[in-house]
């Protein structure tokens, strides 16, 4: 569609653009992901906060037959978001969030509670920060930073585990590919 539009040479960022490689901090309590998108920051900001846009991309990668049953988002400071998916053989998953800071189009900060099953969110949230920087000719470089709560808290255990895994990810890669 944009084949006729000349674009800035992104050759140095091709790998980054094509990857959602998640990098863990040394203490395993936060992770970061950097990615570029082919539109200016305001467009990308909207894609992350507008329910109609979220419905398009958020369910991507979920198993076939998954259904995004709830998708609400009010992107103002103190506003809430709520997504729910029903995933075959896994049941219901929900993301409950409160936007803690909105600085359109540069930054979104939110506290998020992820729950599995039909239960209310409890315990400390993960703190998520998305920043959007203009990049090249009409592109955006996004940085997603996720700070995990107290590792002792069982309610957030699965997310902790995801993070914990990666501090030894190189070790594992080496082992499993041997």
């Amino acid at each position, binding site marked *: *569609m*944009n084949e006729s539009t000349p674009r800035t040479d992104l050759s140095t960022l091709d790998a980054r*653009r094509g*990857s*959602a*490689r*998640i990098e863990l901090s040394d*203490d*395993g309590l936060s992770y970061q*992901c950097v*990615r570029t*998108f*082919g*539109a200016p920051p*305001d*467009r*990308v900001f*909207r*894609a*992350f906060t507008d329910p109609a*846009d979220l419905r*398009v*991309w*958020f369910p*991507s*990668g*979920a198993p076939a037959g998954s259904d995004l049953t709830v998708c609400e988002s009010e992107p*103002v400071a103190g506003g809430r978001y709520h997504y729910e998916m029903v995933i075959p053989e896994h049941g219901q998953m929900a993301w409950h969030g409160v936007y803690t800071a909105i600085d*359109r*189009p540069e930054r979104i900060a939110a506290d998020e509670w992820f729950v599995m099953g039909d239960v209310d969110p409890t315990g400390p949230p993960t703190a998520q920060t998305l920043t959007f920087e203009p990049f090249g000719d009409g592109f955006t470089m996004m940085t997603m930073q996720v700070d995990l709560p107290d*590792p002792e808290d069982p309610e957030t*255990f*699965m997310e*902790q*585990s*995801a993070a*914990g*895994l*990666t*501090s*030894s*990810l190189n*070790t*594992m*890669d*080496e*082992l*499993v590919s*041997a």
Partner: protein
Amino acid sequence: MTGADIVLEAVGEPNRRRLLELLHLHQESTVSELVDASGLNQPQVSKHLKVLATAMLVAVRADGRHRHYRLDGTGLQVAHDWFASFEDVWQSRFDTLDELVSTQPNPIPAEEQLP
């Protein structure tokens, strides 16, 4: 709990990850060697090794009175696969998001969306 739950719970604890790293470094270790290298006390190391063994993250070899611990790839493969699926989801989401924003410019100017 599924196999993945057990493995993920096992590697969710920083001291247990430390023990896995030490075993990776030293190939094979006894409990007392792990106590010396980790700074944890003996009951803590034994307790963590038990959890890691249940998750098939470590295997044990008996040699007379000594028990030698080493990494077991079975649990690591489960953990690796689970985490890879997590990255795959974000990869897939971001590819779709990129397609969306690249092909559909903002239909509403930003100013009009501000309160």
